């Protein structure tokens, strides 16, 4: 596949850290993500509603953060990789306009039924504090199987 390097199971090292990725969530981004015609939580697009609900402004949708995490790992896994599971726990709300950093680390790898399986821990950080904690499982082919 052009444009995205191929990665194989053997290329992965447990403990390896993924390159951090910066994202800036905004109210507009949240609304556009779900589509302007789709009803969503008003706290996603209106800072005043978010403040009335006890937050510091408009909320960043959990599903937007989940999508970013999935994209982050899918891209890291490369052209041969496939995300097969993402589990995210929303630890604390994020407020629109405040940058998020996505970080990740490989915590395990093994062969299951001939398929390479890699487990990663991924988090979104706001001011250095985790707001979403995720576990992501990726399939990567062993080199000999892919060739």
């Amino acid at each position: 596949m052009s444009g995205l390097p191929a990665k194989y199971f053997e290329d992965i090292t447990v403990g390896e850290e993924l390159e951090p990725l910066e994202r800036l969530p905004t109210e507009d981004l949240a609304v556009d993500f779900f589509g302007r015609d789709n009803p969503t939580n008003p706290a996603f697009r209106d800072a005043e509603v978010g403040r009335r609900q006890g937050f510091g402004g408009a909320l960043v949708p959990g599903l937007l953060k989940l999508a970013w995490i999935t994209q982050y790992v899918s891209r890291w896994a490369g052209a041969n990789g496939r995300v097969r599971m993402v589990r995210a726990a929303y630890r604390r709300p994020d407020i629109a306009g405040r940058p998020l950093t996505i970080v990740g680390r490989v915590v395990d790898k093994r062969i299951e039924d001939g398929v390479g399986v890699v487990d990663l821990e991924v988090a979104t950080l706001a001011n250095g504090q985790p707001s979403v904690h995720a576990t992501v499982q990726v399939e990567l082919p062993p080199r000999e199987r892919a060739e």
Partner: protein
Amino acid sequence: MGSPEQSLITEEHRAAIGRTAGPVELRVRAEDVQRVRAILDDDDPRYGEETGIAPPYILAVIEPAMPWQLLPRILPSGILTQTEWTFRRPLRIGERIFATHRLADIRDRLGGQYGYSVIMNVMTEYRDEAGELVATSLRTSMQFDPAQRRERGSE
């Protein structure tokens, strides 16, 4: 009023476990894929109209709202606390998917910001037109009483 000293989950609530809703028909629309990829600045060549494959995170956009009708109302407020997606195969642009929801569990939680809360799990299965399972989504929500909020949470 402090936190309840015994579970607020009744036999009637427990009887709701296993209840289902759906199927709800969904479509993996090219315009949704295009829009969301642009918003996420995703130039991954595996996805897009030319490949016919949707990125896995498209589930965030096509996933139906939480089927609140399946969830007994035990405490006044509720939030989504966890999501788990599994993918059996890539979703294809243009395909029809059928979502069925099932209330999988109800349980108590002691501690945390609200002292006492109720945790509910909803499992959603996504099947294609042939009935093959293509993805699942397990959503965990927490019901709580905002009046019981403590100054310092557990998280």
